[in-house]
């Protein structure tokens, strides 16, 4: 059994590395590619869990992760970036070094927190949990350190990767597949929304700052 966990950890670790890479990539195309890589890693991890836990339905999730997040959405975003002509933008709200430091802090916080959890409290070991938590926090961090909607979508999706990782890691958790489907729908909505705003030409760029142009009570 043990090497089963090793593989899981290896894949989860890869995802974490991907998250860090996402954090310091400032070219959008690179961000998209890295994300695709992370998604593939997730797909593998989920598939592996399905194999270990003998839950064939997890393969659906794996497939979706692979197909949708590994290929379709990155491509879609790619085209969007090209059409919006923002492929040269550097959209860091805080500089990379700062972001990396924050990322390290978050990861250590995640580890610290999970260390409190009594060993063997769950079949899904503390390391896995720590990694998932770290990935989620990093995704969140990415969302708030980027200005541009595309990278925000990516940030959100990496949060969601972390969630799926955690969910599939938790042995025999019901509804995982349904939830992953639900999340994919969410992401689709997200992307669609950005497209909609673009197409309506109500907001001249997809920079979220400009979404706030008509804000609250500025009448």
């Amino acid at each position, binding site marked *: 059994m043990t090497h089963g966990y090793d593989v899981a950890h290896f894949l989860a670790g890869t995802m974490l590395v991907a998250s860090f890479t996402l954090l310091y990539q400032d070219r959008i195309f690179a961000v998209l590619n890295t994300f695709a890589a992370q998604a593939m890693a997730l797909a593998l991890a989920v598939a592996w869990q399905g194999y270990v836990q003998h839950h064939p339905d997890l393969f659906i999730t794996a497939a979706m992760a692979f197909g949708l997040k590994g290929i379709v959405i990155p491509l879609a975003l790619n085209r969007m970036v090209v059409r919006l002509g923002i492929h040269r933008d550097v959209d860091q709200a805080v500089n990379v070094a700062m972001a990396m430091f924050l990322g390290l802090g978050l990861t250590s916080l995640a580890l610290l927190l999970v260390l409190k959890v009594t060993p063997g409290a769950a079949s899904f070991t503390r390391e896995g949990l720590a990694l998932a938590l770290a990935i989620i926090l990093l995704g969140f961090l990415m969302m708030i350190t980027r200005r541009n909607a595309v990278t925000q979508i990516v940030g959100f999706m990496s949060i969601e990767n972390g969630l799926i990782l955690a969910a599939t890691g938790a042995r025999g958790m019901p509804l995982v597949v349904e939830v992953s489907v639900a999340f994919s729908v969410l992401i689709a909505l997200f992307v669609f929304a950005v497209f909609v705003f673009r197409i309506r030409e109500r907001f001249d760029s997809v920079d979220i700052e400009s979404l*706030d142009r008509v804000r609250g009570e500025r009448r």
Partner: protein
Amino acid sequence: MMVERPLDILAVALAIYGGAALLSLILPRRLLGIVYPACILAAILACAADLSVLAGQADFKAQLPIGLPSVGLRFRLDGLAAFFGFIVNLGIAASSLYGIGIGKADLSKRIEPFYPAFCAAMNTVLLADDAFGFLFFWELMSLSSWALVVARHEEAECRKAGYVYLIMAAMGTAALLFAFGGMAGAAGGYGFDAIRAHKLTPLISALVLVAALFGTGSKAGIMPLHAWLPLAHPAAPSHVSALMSGVMTKVAVYAIIRIVFDLLADPPWWWSLPFIILGAATAVGGLLYAVQDRDLKRVLAYSTIENIGIIFAGLGLAIAFKATGIVAAAAVAMAAALLHSLNHSWFKSLLFLGAGAVLHATGRRDLDGLGGLIQRMPKTAFFWLIGALSISALPPLNGFVSEWLLFQAVLAGPGFPEPILRFLSPVLGAMLALAAGLAAACFVRAFGTVFLGRPRSKDAAEAHEVPFVQTLAIGLLAVLCILGGLFGGFSAYAIGPLLKTLAGTELTGLLNGPTKLSLIAFDPERSIYDAPTIALFVTLSSITTMLFVHLVSNRRTRRAPAWDCGFPDASPATQYTASSFSQPLRRVYKGVVLGAVESLDMPPPGDLRPGHFSVRFYDYAWRNLYAAPAEALLAVATRFNAFQFLTIRRYLVLMFCTLIALLIVTAVWM
């Protein structure tokens, strides 16, 4: 649900009040007048019930299965409630009688429906026997009176008054919430009997004292919480102002008596300190503002503040004496406080109703625009004079009775074991004496400028006497003031049983003086005040003098223009105005306790333009305790408002920081 008879009668009265309120919601506007006869009927019933209880001193309980779960809505009618109920309902009767005279055109859906509701609320506050019910009706009282204050909502200052009033009322209620919360304890025994049983730690009881003082003091107008009162009381229609000033403040007094003397059975002696200090300060401060203000109804409102100060000081002395075991003096001080509540409700209602009459007759409230009304409305003038003399605590009228008792109580001060109290009581005496002097000045000024002299404006010159019922209402109150003054001894005797329960003993000296009617604080050797005899003396001697003089003199009287030191027929503008009248006093007290800015624009010789002199007043309490915090609050609000205009990313940052903060907290915690 078990009830004896007096409560039944009160229930009927309350039903009439409530019915009138509901009915007036649906009645057409011109029929709204009927609420006043209804209120009179209810008030008379209630007075009868209260008097029967006062005489009998049994207490009656009732409980309704509504209100707070597991506590229910409890009512209790005991001596204290009955006494204040008597005050309240008598005031209501007078104001309603005045209300009958209100013209059809002045009836409005904004006043008449709330008036009976207000009356009912005041009655129920007195009856409530559990914390929830008490605060419930207390807040209803504030709410209904707020509606009456903002009745003339087109005027900005009425809106402002209503706003400040309701905010202060809410703060007061919050404070009382705390007081009752502290007294009931975490277990939440909200029934008054449970509260009586519940013993408090010193800390909690101190907090309760502060909260209770704030809650009731803000309602009664204790300085420095008073600044809302001169805004709100005058803003309401006059017969409502009479109720608010004459009666509602007494409900607040009732509340503090109920809390201190009943619920917290035996308070420590130092509880009396805030009462005495604040009371004395309020008594003098209130008058200093009253003697300066130029708006008739505001003058009355400020003088209400002063009288509340006197009452609180009396209560403070009562606490101190009771706590130090000098029950006889405690009884005297308590009698002073109670009787002053009664008397003040009478002459303050009189004065406000009279001011209402003046307002109705001339359409103005500013002293500097009135004058000479004694010619145009002699009845009102006469009654108002009696009211003014009683409130200036002049014998043989009722204001002096309570004043006299209070001085007797002060004189018992050397008996205090605590040095602080020994020091404070002469200070209090001095303050009260000062207040008495200023009161006289204040009301000479008010009566003199409004009713005497020559009219200072067209409105005043064309004034007309108000309808009969209104003068009747004012007149009856005047009669009460006189009777209350003559038979002070009797009223002191009548509240004897109440004094026994509150202070521990009644006024033992009564009835064994030279006459049965003399008022005796301790024993006949020590102090007597016999109003009837004095009155008799004065009347006899004045009549004899008059007879003698008319015998000797040639009874001839010529009318001629005023001599005025040889300035013939000067225009009315040369008269002293209210502001010029108070100028010497302003000179004495300006700066120290009185915010007044005098500005004089005197043209140089040869310049023909008229010189100008103007005075502006401001209430220190208003500046520092009302305006300043409000500005600070708005400034903070403006700061916070930036949070409405962040970008989505920043909102995400907030969310992220919250999450991380909480995570770190847990990481440290567990």
